[in-house]
């Protein structure tokens, strides 16, 4: 390969832009390092060379996101006071101060609507019991008994807060940016941008399940950093996964061979053209991916016990379980970031403005066993140490009732949890007040989760910036030191 294209040191931006534009959707950095090895990018930007900036704890992330807003009080932050003061309005309790206007001012309203995003004042009792699990004795609600059984491997963060009181908070949870601000790359895109590939046959950033309404991840980093959508469908696992014709595998192989031969021969006509190199590489990867991707979702070699662990044998858990089993297989193969969303529908299935008990218990039933199965499976394979599993949702739900049996959106305090990848187990970090209203002890904005993930992956969150796109301190977040 050519070593003749010398770029002057002053053309940093130019070169960076080229690499940027020529970047690959996956193995993007792999290509960049390839070009660097070939002398195309010699001496380029040292912040991201496809390697962690310091010794990482985790190699990959499995990001589980429950769309719609999981009730924190009825999942990982039980609040007995709700039952005690049930039916009373908040200002009749000793905790009336939670509604001081000053404490509510962070919220930025996008959607003005009587039906949601309102303060709900009449306290709604807990709809589910809870118990202590494991040696740590962390309390988990009875809707999540399987996750409860893994609690000694989990750090629950009970003091999250955000600022969008509508489902734009899903965008905010992924990018750290409020819906009214210009869009920014999501955490998955940053990980993809910052780290190299561990497997050149697979995308480095994969999404499964229903997307939230922002369909992009890369934004100003470019489409090369968008997630590649994967479906658990052997016939059609990703877009254009195989010829939409009767072309046989052999014929296709010869075709790919000819394309690459011709692209190499074209170098005689267009020597020193980096786009030719990148194009050749992209076809090689595409061809390998055609086999590698279906292989990931072919569970034939998994034991019945493993399948059962993920709930593949049960109707309600099968669909999510398959995605999680695929996630384990992807993480095993070195995919950096696997983003799985649960809960279809415009706003997300977990959006229980009514029928909280019925629906939350049903939805929890779909995810509880598979998630616990994933944690156990990763652990028994020794993979949990380097795989960071995150369970998140866009916001919590109101301590007060909406209608007769629902809870509204609640951005002031909610819970997420992390496990594996160097995160301590058996921790319940931070807390909300007695009503579960505000995050009071060790409050964390959503980007603290991002900073913690990046830190575990060996990246400085403050290094995640590109020229022309200034980020605020808040956008970078701070590492949650107490849980690592």
């Amino acid at each position, binding site marked *: 390969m050519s070593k003749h*294209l*010398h*770029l002057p040191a002053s*053309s940093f*931006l130019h070169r960076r832009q080229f690499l940027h*534009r*020529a970047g*690959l*959707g996956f193995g993007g950095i792999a290509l960049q390092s390839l070009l660097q090895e070939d002398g195309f990018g010699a001496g380029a930007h040292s912040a991201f060379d496809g390697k962690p900036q310091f010794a990482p704890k985790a190699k990959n992330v499995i990001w589980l996101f429950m769309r719609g807003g999981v009730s924190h009080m009825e999942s990982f932050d039980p609040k007995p006071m709700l039952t005690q003061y049930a039916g009373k309005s908040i200002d009749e309790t000793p905790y009336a101060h939670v509604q001081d206007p000053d404490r509510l001012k962070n919220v930025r309203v*996008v959607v*003005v*609507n009587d039906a949601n995003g309102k303060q709900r004042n009449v306290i709604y009792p807990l709809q589910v019991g809870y118990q202590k699990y494991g040696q740590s004795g962390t309390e988990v609600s009875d809707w999540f008994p399987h996750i409860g059984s893994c609690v000694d491997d989990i750090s629950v963060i009970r003091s999250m807060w955000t600022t969008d009181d509508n489902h734009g908070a899903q965008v905010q949870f992924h990018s750290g940016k409020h819906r*009214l601000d210009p*869009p920014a790359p999501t955490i998955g895109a940053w990980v993809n941008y910052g780290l190299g590939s561990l497997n050149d046959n697979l995308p480095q950033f994969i999404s499964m399940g229903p997307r939230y309404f922002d*369909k992009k991840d890369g934004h100003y980093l*470019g*489409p*090369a950093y968008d997630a*590649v959508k994967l479906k*658990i469908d052997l*016939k*059609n696992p990703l*877009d*254009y*996964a*195989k*010829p*939409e*014709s009767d*072309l046989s595998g052999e*014929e296709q192989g*010869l*075709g*790919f*061979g*000819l*394309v690459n*031969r*011709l692209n190499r021969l*074209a170098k*005689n*006509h*267009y*020597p*020193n*053209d980096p*786009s*030719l190199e990148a*194009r*050749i590489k992209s*076809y090689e*990867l*595409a061809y390998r*991916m*055609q086999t590698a991707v279906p292989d990931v979702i072919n569970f034939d070699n998994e034991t019945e016990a493993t399948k059962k662990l993920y709930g593949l044998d049960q109707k309600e858990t099968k*669909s999510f379980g398959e995605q999680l089993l695929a996630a384990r297989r992807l993480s095993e193969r070195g995919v950096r970031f696997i983003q799985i969303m649960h*809960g*279809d529908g*415009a706003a997300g299935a977990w959006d229980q403005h009514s029928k909280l008990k019925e629906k939350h218990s049903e939805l929890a039933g*779909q995810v509880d066993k598979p998630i616990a199965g994933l944690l156990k499976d990763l652990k028994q394979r020794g993979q949990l140490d380097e795989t960071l599993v995150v369970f998140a949702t866009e916001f919590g739900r109101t301590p007060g009732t909406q209608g007769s049996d629902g809870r509204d959106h609640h951005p002031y305090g909610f819970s997420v949890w992390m496990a594996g990848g160097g995160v301590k187990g058996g921790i319940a970090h931070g807390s909300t007040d007695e009503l579960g209203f505000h995050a009071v002890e060790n409050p964390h904005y959503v980007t603290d989760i991002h900073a913690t993930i990046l830190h575990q992956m060996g990246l400085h969150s403050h290094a995640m910036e590109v020229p022309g796109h200034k980020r605020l301190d808040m956008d970078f977040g701070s590492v949650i030191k107490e849980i690592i």
Partner: protein
Amino acid sequence: MFASQRVIRSSIGFSIAAGLLMLTASASAVDYLRDIKPVLKARCYSCHGALKQKADLRVDTALSMIAAKAVLPGDAAGSELIKRISNEDDDERMPPEGHALKEDQIAAIRSWIASNAPLPKDEAAEDDPRSHWSFQAIQRPPLPADSDQANPVDRFLAARQKEAGLITQAPALRTIQLRRLYIDLIGLPPTEKQLKDERPWETIVDELLASPHHGERWGRHWMDIWRYSDWYGLGAQLRYSQKHLWHWRDWIVESLNEDKGYDEMIIEMLAGDEIAPEDPETLRATGFLARNYFLFNRTTWLDSTIEHTGKAFLGLTFNCAKCHDHKYDPIEAEDYYRFRAIFEPHQVRLDPVPGVTDFEKDGLPRVFDNHLDAETFLHQRGDPKQPDKELKITPGVPRFLSQFATKIEPVKLPLPAYAPGTQPFVQRDHLAAADTLVEKARENLEKVKVEMAKNATLEKSPAKKAPHDSESNFPLEDDFTAFNPLLWTLQGNGLAYKNGHLEQINPSREPGQLVSKHPLPRDFEVTCRYTTTGGPTYRSISFRFDRDEAGKNANFIYTSEHAPGPKVQAAYTENGKTTYPADGRAKKSEATGKPQELRIAVRDQLANVWLNGEFVLAYTFPGRRADGHFSLSAFDATAEFHSIRIEALGRDVQFTKSKNTSESDSEESLDKTLRLAELELESAIAGQESVKATIAADTAHYDKTKAPAPALEKAATEGQIKEMEARAAFEMAKHEGGDKKKLSAATALKKKAEGQREALQNGTAAYKSLRASRKALETPAHKVEDYPSVYPEESTGRRTMLAKWITAPENPLTARVAVNHVWMRHFGEPLVETVSDFGRQAKKPIHHDLLDFLAAEFIESGWSFRHLHRLLVTSQTYQLSSSNRGASGENLQLDPTNSLYWKMNPMRMESQVVRDSLLHLAGDLDLTTGGPSLDSGNAKNRRSLYFTHSPDKLDQFLTTFDDADLLQCYRRSTSIVPQQALALSNSAMSLQSAEKIATKIGLERAQKDFITAAFDLILGRSPDSSEVEACETFLSELATLSAEESNSSATRFRNQLVHALLNHNDFVTVR
């Protein structure tokens, strides 16, 4: 004592500083220019430099810091500069924003001061911001004399190249040149014949510039820059942009095709409603502003307007001055809000287009000044909750460039502009629409009566089953072995008869529909066997009945194999809006790939559904249409339909009651249907009367030559009240016991009518002029009906002032920015790298003289893009080879990035061009121009720019090749990703195009001839011997693979060869 103490302190300071320095850098002594000035420039100049001199301090020279006593040479600790940058109190610390300076930076400054602050030689103060190159008037530079080039582009470049010792590459092959030119000017690759065109270059250039496809090609570029987006929202709720924004797209294309001056285009886009308020053609241009509409937040809406007006036309980043004064450019926060005040009064509305009264179908999106007195306040720190009420903000342009701004002159609007309902065509259309409603309601009532009579006869019939009615074609049975035109019509694409069944071949969200020719019996049952074979997400198979011709109204049952919850669902569509009631839903087990038998029985409003013989769902529909057809389709699914039987409902069918309504017996239901039909007719007649009375009143009211006619106005008021009453009565009856929201809306309407009637009696009611336009909601809490139907008679003229200022020949930015955009799209790289920021962050370009020459030429040509294009593409430079082959070693050493254009830059085709090229080479591209946006899908072969372009609806293929970012796309990204390889290798479009292209090249040609012709057509050049050999090897390998040899296999191999060439890097590259 005092002196010695100071010495000691400063020497301690020095030693600490020195120590720190030793720790942080291996640097010997601190160098002011190297270690300090860049830090001050980055962090301090914006407030203490040429732009601003807060506290009368400038830190852009060492001398100025010493003169201001911020630096006391020799006394670091005593220097105010050190005190402030190292202060631990956040309120005192400088700089106030962002992090404090780093310790080593502070240490360096301290050390420099401690060593008596040595002055650098000849340090110049920062230039006056107003002297920035792009803020200077455009002056036509003289052509460099020392060159024999005829084209000014070549002349300017040759001078630079000569100076640098560069030798230009040879011209590209003629065929490569032609391919470049065709793709560049019309976005379509040349045909085999066009590649052999021997006419002079200029002749071909002129022909292409005159082609209607030129406007499409360059229109798409400007759609990128001007942020074209079709509307999107939630369901039918408009949240962003505007419905029917394609009118603006057509204006862009047409304007370019008629070579309208860019100045005129800008004026029309920003102020078309003020300069030509009665001309719908011009009004289309204001789609530029309408596109920024945002339902939820006016500030966000105006922020977008300000930011992108600034970036698109002026290359000014106004957005940076929203929260505080601009850090680099002489734009103050107040300028930002003065700019906002220009847009403050404007709103968006849809105006009627002839022949259409339903704004969901069509309408013209346009802007107009609505709130003439709306005030603008400066938002402190950019926070809308903190308006500065003390400061009076008046509309205006940034002060530093305001010398050539003209005065704001309000514009008197003509009647049709502010009262669109007074236009004769609008009145005619509204009368016709009201007549149609009456007619339809009357027909409906007749049908219901006939149905009742029939039913009465049936009651008397002893037969268990309804008798076979030969006229009605029921029972209907079909096993789908072949299309039966007597029974069905086939609508849309994607449904086909194959292998003995009916099949939806590719999943689509706009699938084909098999529609029964004959209306269904009112009560019926359907049994259908089918298999859902796959599909991306929803995998639904729908059975519609009561369906009108366009499919805008229907009741239906569908099954979905959607993974999280396979289900059977009853749903209904009214006026295109579908409702999926929760109590019309039943779970089922996943059955992809398994044949299922679905049986639906419908009696009046009650439907029962059985799946594989088991009862699954009972649901009572809110209403039935008296007449309607049956259809089946697969939504987002592939499916095979095996058989169907439709028959009149047997008397013995046992129904399960639904939970959503108490079962009413059939007669009662028919009675209700009759009553509804009568009420609907009454409501339609009242509507018709109301329209007539309103038009009469309007005609009298707006005719200033005649005396007022209070009787007519009173009649109109009366008519409008009656209409409300009749409609409320109908809606209330219709939704009684059904949709609660609709029922309460009907009740509210009734209340409103009552209030109006009372007001009429008190003499306080006033009629409303004919509502013929639809104003976009200002907040989601508003309703269209609450807005006046007539708008202000005046427009502020603010936007006209703005547009004239932007297009004034004195404006130093407008022409430069436009020329730079055009240059970049012809030559692959811009002259000014930061295409949307020409402020002080933009370095003076290497080719400043060329840029200014082109800008001057552009203005003097009457802002003619055609003139500019011709100038650029007829240059020698444009026709150079893009290859490095044969380039001198010096060239590669001296100018590896080709900044002096000694060769052409290769470019990746834009996504639209990739798709259009595939289809065009295959002869499949439908070259129809203009019209409403189309949802994408391979079935439609229109050019890609006509696809719906919004965040909700992006074409998958186009997205893969870096489609325009809808939020801001001053320059497209061009990635090279494996998904592109998969899309080009595996998409049906690419595979099918390959077959057709192979046929067009001529399968009868000898092998080598075929290979050469394929290279010529697809890559624009002939293959060399090793490329021919590679292709021949490929063909023979394919032959070895194939067991039998035949003509058809030879064809197949050649198709694959063409397919490989479509995947060649140089197909998607403009060489």
